[in-house]
Every structure is written in structure tokens, then in C-alpha cells.
């Protein structure tokens, strides 16, 4: 074979040998990703993080979660266990009538979207306390139907393990105190508040689980909300004022009695006081009864002489007493000290949500000190607890989720030198 004869096959071999390998497309190559640190973001938490609003959750409220907003601004993929509309359970359309935004069907749940994500980035479960993050079967767990509907019965840690997060936000602990407030039998029951020492142990165990991933480059630990300030609770002294106003308008008739025990309070500091408070269902029911009786009198259906006032008695178990409220304040303060220490130990960010929420009290109309009941001045069906709070009086509204997202963005950018754009 001549040299010329050899050239062609050798050249062809050389060309073919350059096999065109394809390549990985790691999440760091996501278009628009602000920083590689955010390549795999996972949000742990409870109902707020999951997107629970107005006592319900669906694929609209889930997308309004601050966690989803933050992920969008980070430019990172974020898979959510979407629940079909109207929800699971559906949110209130009207908290006073308890009308829902739709009929969820016989199961009370419109179920998950049948198209399942391969993995979850939003692993938060409504109702979760710290223990539930890593052990939803543990003694004293807060498991509920959404523990299975959203998390498949697995712990949030287990679901996050599919992702091996590079960045996390953790907003957990609210239910370690809120569970006591929402208890129907004895709101504020100290026995239902996770002892701060137990909280610290459980929180440390949770953080150990996060550390075990070995992939987390940064994170934000969000503190516990002072649940006693939720507009779901109305201070007894406010109810006394309402009673006085009603008495003035209807004298000599008396449609509402608010016990003097509702004025009980415990000074905590020069600026803070723990006030006995009345849960919304208790106060709302009494007010509705008073209103109905007033209507009956005005309509001639009820003799004025036979009017019996509706009663709000803060001395019984239906109220959160000032002592119970002080216990809640103390517990949450200790929780937050624990959380801040855990964040500091890792060089992570600690964000105290109370700074943000307390500022909303100063914004007109954002958080109402007394629900805007129908029949009273300035009633509201769309924002009875204020524009910052959804219709259940506990969970933030969509607008507050934006504020939370922007607060986190500001903290993350300051700490890590990133440039996550704010949510408009």
C-alpha cells in the first residue's frame, strides 16, 4: 500500500475516533440560576412554608408560599407536591360562614396532582413540629392527613435526601407553641407547649440530620413566631371595649357579657404585657349569638325582658389566660435562642420573623386587633384579620409571603454576597 493509500483510512479513523460524548446537565447549569449555592434548594417547615392559608391549601396557595417565591428569585428548580383545586382541605371563602372555595369531594381532599415530581424541594408539612421533620412516627408527633398527602408518610429529611440540598431554609417550631393555642378544649394549655429543653434537643437532632447530608453550603433558620400575637386571638381587654360599645348602643338591654377575668394581664417588661386573650371561635360564637338575639328583639321575635346576654368568660378554659400567654411568650423566646445558636454554630443566617410581623402591626389595615365581623363597623369578608393575615387568623396572606421572601432575600444577599432580586 502506498502512502497515498494509507492517508484516507487513517484520516477517517482519526475523525471517527473523536466520539462526541454528551455531558451531564447539573443543576448548576440552570438558566438564570443566581448562584451555584442555590442549585438544589430545599424548604423545610410547617403550614406557612407549605403554603397553607385560610385553613386550607391548594395548588394556588402553595405557589404563593414564600419558599416558592424565593426559589423563583434564585432561579432554581423547585418541585412542589401540588394539591388539586379546590384543596386538601380547601381554604375558606368566608370564615364567618365557614364556606369553602369549593367542594373537595367525599374524601375532604381533592388529592394530589396526578403528575408527580420525581423529587420534592418543598418538603414542608402543615402541622409539623420540630420532631416531625425527622421522625413523623415519634412519640408526640403531629402527623395528620397532609403528612401522607404531601410527604408520602416519609419524614421531611427523607424527602430532602432525594435532592441532597445545597441550600436550605428551615422554618419550624411554630406548632410547638401554636398547638396549644389552637387546642379546642383548653387554649393555651401549658402541657401542650413543647418544653424549651425538649425543643432544643429535638432541634439539635434535626440539625444533625441536615448536617449528615454533607452537601449544604448555606442556609437560613427562621425563628418561631410569637403565636400569642396571632389575630386569631383577641385580647380580653379589647372584648371588654366591644362589650362597652354594645352596651352603649343597646342600653338598657344587655346582649354581651365579657367577664372581668378578660382584663387579666401579666407585665413581661417595660414594653410587653401578656394579656388574657380570646380565641376567634369563642369570641365569634358569642358575638354571633348576641347579634342574633339583638336581631330577634328588633324583629319582635324576642321579648326584651327575656334577653339573656351571650357570655365570654375568660376565667374558664375557653381563653388563653395571661399566665398561659406569658408561658407562650417565654417558650417562644427560648425556642428562638436555641435556633439562633444553631444558626450561629454553622455560620448560617438566623431570621426572627417577629421583627417583620411586629412591623405589620404598625401598618394600617395589615393586622387588625379585632376581627372585622359582619354587622360591626368596617366589616370585611376578604381580610377580616387584616390584609397581612389569611382568613383563618393564623397564617400569613399572600402579600405577607412576599414580605417574608424579600426579608429572606435581603438576609441571604447580605450574608453570602449574592444578588437575588427582590420579589416585586
Amino acid at each position, binding site marked *: 500500500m502506498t502512502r497515498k493509500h494509507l492517508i484516507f483510512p487513517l484520516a477517517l479513523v482519526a475523525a471517527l*475516533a473523536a*466520539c462526541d460524548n*454528551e455531558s451531564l446537565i447539573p443543576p448548576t447549569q440552570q438558566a438564570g440560576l443566581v448562584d451555584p449555592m442555590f442549585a*438544589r434548594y430545599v424548604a423545610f417547615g410547617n403550614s406557612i412554608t407549605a403554603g397553607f392559608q385560610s385553613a386550607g391549601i391548594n395548588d394556588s396557595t402553595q405557589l404563593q408560599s414564600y419558599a416558592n417565591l424565593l426559589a423563583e428569585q434564585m432561579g432554581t428548580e423547585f418541585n412542589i407536591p401540588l394539591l388539586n383545586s379546590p384543596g386538601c382541605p380547601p381554604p375558606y371563602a368566608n370564615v364567618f360562614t365557614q364556606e369553602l372555595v369549593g367542594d373537595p369531594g367525599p374524601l375532604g381532599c381533592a*388529592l394530589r396532582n396526578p403528575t408527580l415530581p420525581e423529587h*420534592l424541594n418543598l418538603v414542608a408539612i402543615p402541622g409539623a413540629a420540630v420532631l416531625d421533620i425527622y421522625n413523623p412516627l415519634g412519640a408526640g408527633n403531629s*402527623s395528620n392527613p397532609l*403528612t401522607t*398527602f404531601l410527604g408520602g*408518610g416519609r419524614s421531611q429529611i427523607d424527602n430532602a435526601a432525594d435532592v441532597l440540598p445545597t441550600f436550605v431554609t428551615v422554618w419550624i417550631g411554630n406548632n410547638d407553641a401554636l398547638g396549644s393555642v389552637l387546642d379546642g378544649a383548653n387554649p393555651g394549655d401549658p402541657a401542650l407547649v413543647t418544653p424549651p429543653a425538649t425543643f432544643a434537643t429535638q432541634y439539635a437532632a434535626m440539625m444533625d440530620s441536615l448536617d449528615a447530608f454533607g452537601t449544604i453550603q448555606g442556609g437560613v433558620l427562621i425563628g418561631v413566631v410569637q403565636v400569642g400575637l396571632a389575630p386569631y386571638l383577641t385580647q380580653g381587654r379589647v372584648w371588654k371595649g366591644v362589650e362597652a360599645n354594645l352596651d352603649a348602643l343597646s342600653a338598657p338591654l344587655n346582649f354581651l357579657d365579657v367577664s372581668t377575668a378578660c382584663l387579666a394581664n401579666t407585665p413581661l417588661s417595660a414594653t410587653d404585657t401578656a394579656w388574657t386573650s380570646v380565641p376567634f371561635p369563642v369570641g365569634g360564637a358569642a358575638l354571633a349569638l348576641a347579634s342574633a338575639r339583638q336581631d330577634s328583639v328588633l324583629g319582635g321575635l324576642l321579648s326584651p325582658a327575656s334577653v339573656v346576654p351571650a357570655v365570654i368568660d375568660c376565667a374558664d378554659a375557653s381563653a388563653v389566660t395571661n399566665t398561659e400567654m406569658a408561658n407562650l411568650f417565654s417558650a417562644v423566646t427560648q425556642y428562638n435562642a436555641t435556633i439562633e445558636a444553631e444558626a450561629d454554630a454553622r455560620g448560617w443566617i438566623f431570621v426572627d420573623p417577629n421583627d417583620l410581623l411586629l412591623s405589620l402591626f404598625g401598618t394600617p389595615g395589615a393586622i387588625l386587633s379585632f376581627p372585622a365581623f359582619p354587622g360591626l363597623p368596617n366589616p370585611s369578608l376578604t381580610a377580616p384579620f387584616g390584609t397581612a393575615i389569611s382568613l383563618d387568623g393564623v397564617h400569613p396572606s399572600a402579600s405577607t409571603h412576599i414580605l417574608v421572601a424579600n426579608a429572606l432575600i435581603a438576609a441571604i444577599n447580605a450574608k453570602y454576597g449574592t444578588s437575588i432580586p427582590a420579589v416585586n
Partner: protein
Amino acid sequence: MRRSLVLFALAATPLALTRSAQAQGFQVNEHGSCVMARGGTGVAKSCDDGSAMFYNPAGIVGPRGWIISAGVTVIDANGGFTADLTGTKTDLKNSPIPVPHAYLQYGTDKFAVGAGMFVPYGLGTTWPDTFQGKFAGYDNNLQNIYVQPTVAWKPHPMVSIGGGVDYVIGSVTLTQRVDLSENPVPGFGTVTFGQLGVPSGTQFADGKLDGSGSALAAHFGVVFTPDERFRIGVRYLTRANITYDGNVVFTPASTGITLPAENPFGVPAGTPLDSVVSSAFVSGPLVDQTVSAKVTMPDQLTAGVAMDVAPTVTLLVDYNWVHWALFKALPVTFENAALNSTTVENYKNTWGIRFGLDWAASTNFTVRAGYIYHTGAAPAEAVTPLLPEGKRNEFTGGIGYAFSQRFRVEAAYQYLAQQDRRGRTAEFPSGVTPTTALNNGLYEFNAHLFGLTLTAGF
């Protein structure tokens, strides 16, 4: 359970089929260590070991008397899948697999008859059962034995023709996990377990398919020798229709989930999810049943030349084409007709080019080398754990030694380097035209092949 069974069938059957007929993927093309050592080039000039029955039936005419030959190719495959999301790599667990070949022929100057046995589709893929692609298949083995009676005739000093009939005895074993999240909840219509929250990728059953089938194919070849130093060869293997009949057997595989309180299944906290779904193995779609699939294996054509560039040196070049575009979709029939389904593959025709060098270093010692390039049949949207194939570069070398005029031994080595290929670990639902949307990582594959053939002539 409809969807998972359908996926099982759809995922499983293409493996059997593609391995049975393709010129790429996991096909074994090494059926004689002599040809293997020179890059698989054998259509224009055969080795005198009977392997021409596979490489070109016309090539068996020439040697006089009896030739009996037997050998083995050991294939040591390596590879893995790296997930885009986490960068986690899962390695194949394949063990080295011996693939035998044997030939017997008798010839005169103008005629030859013989019979060959080779296993062109005898490889497997074994992934750990923790692999995320286990729902598409994690332990798959295929053995297709070809028995080919062959005749050849040399009607003119410059022309040889030959042909044979292939009786194909195929068997396949495929194993995969079944994803609970995709299965309907008994008594809830079309509501799936996934809609109750069961995560995607939750195993609950192990499905094992054993199937077998047979088919006939025809093989033709011609060799034209215009000059003592130059040969041209062409072979054509017809398409073949194979019906694989078999059974699917399901056994429980733990979900690993213990249900928390207030779960939608209405069972106490602490109840294993396994116990909730255990009835599926007693009644319903997950009972053992028969399955079958009819498939047309594509026809293929090989043409090549061989030139003696020196008294002891021969250069060879082959071109191979496979009509893979025939494989567009695959219907599968279950005993439970409700599970019948069709998968879409949309394969592409493939081609390969092979270069070989044969140097008779002495009267009893030969050195060989070669190079092969193949394109891949699977389009970008059909690269799965079952067949993560792609373009290939292969490098070969080997030696032959004649102990006497009657006995020879050939040894060969081949390194196969496949293009790193993006692919997926999950299957599309039945009937859905696949896209690259589910591609979620990178498949890597390479193999070391060792061949040894003993030949006796008398």
C-alpha cells in the same frame, strides 16, 4: 396496576428485540477470534475457521475437507449512570459473560456445507436494585442462539455464493420494580396511590418476565475475486419475525414506608404500607400471567473489500447497515387484555465501518488489528437503563498460532468505548411518543472483550 404493568411490558420487550437484531447496543458481533482481532472485517475475506457462516456464508467455500472450530468470547462490560441532579453515580454490576461459538464445515474446491452455532445476542445489564432506573429494568439477561445450516458454491473462479437458514432460539429474562405511585388505588377508580401522596419511585413489587420464542431468517452472501490480491464481499441478513411468549411473575418488594397517623388509607399509625398493598399479589393485575410480543427484527447489509497489499499483509474494510427504522413501535399483549399497550421507539437506521489488518508474520504466526465505528440506533429520547446505547469506537488486536497444519489457536482482545449518552431512568406512559424531557443523567459504557478460538482441520 395497569400503568405499571404496561410499562413493565413496554420496557422489557424492546430489550429483547433490540438485542436480537441490532448491530449496535449490546449485540455480540464477535463470533470468531480471528475476525474479531481484525476489527470484525470478514465479509470479503473469511478466516478459515468456519466463522464465515456468520460473517459471509459465501466465504466458507475454499478450504478442502473438514473444519471444526469452537471458542468463546468473554465480555466484561462496565458502565454507569450519573444523575444530573445530585451527581450521584450508579455503576453497572455486570459480571463477565462467556459467549460461545462453534462451527463444522466440509468443503471441496467448489462446494461447501456446514452448520454454525453462535449467540449474537447474549449479554445482559445488571444494575443495583437501589438504582433509580430499577423501574425500567435492573436485571436483564438475553440469550439468542442462532443455528445456521449453510451451503456455498463457487460457480466461477472469481465468484462464490452462499446462503443459510437461521433458526433462532431466543430466551429472555427481565426484572424490574413496579412503582406504586403510578398504580390505581383499589376501589377508587382512576385515583392513583401517587394522588394519595405516595412518592414517585416507591417500589412495591418486583416483576420478573421470562419469555422465549423462535424465528426463521435467511442469510445470503457473495464474494467476488477480480484479482488474487483483491476481494469484494456482500452479505444480507433478512428481517425476522419473532414472537416472544412468556410469563410475568410478581413478588412483593418493600416500600420502606411506615404510615403515620391519620393517613388516607385509614390504618393505624405504624402500619407498613406494604400490608396495605399486599392484596394486589393475591387478586388483581399483579397475579402471574402470560405475555407476548411480536417483533420484526430489521434486515441488515454488509459490504466490504480486502486487499493483499503485500504477500503477507491484508487490509480489510467493511461497511454495515441495519434497517432499524423499522422499529417504530411495539405492541404488547397480556393475558389481561386491559393491560395491552404499545410503546413508541422511533429508532433510526444505523451504520458502521470497520477496518482490519492481517499480517502473517511467519508461516505459523499471524498478527491482527482493527478498528470499528458504529452509530447508535436509539434516538436521544430512547436511551434507557435497558439499552443505554450510543455511538461506539472499538479497537481490536490479536494473534493466531498454528501448532500444525491441523490445529490452530486464535486469541483476540477488543476494547469498546461507547459515547457518553444522555438518557432517562423512567419510562413514558403507554402510547406516548417519548421526548428528551425525561432525560435526567448520563450513561457511560465500555467493555473489554477477550476471545479464544480453537480450530482443527482434517
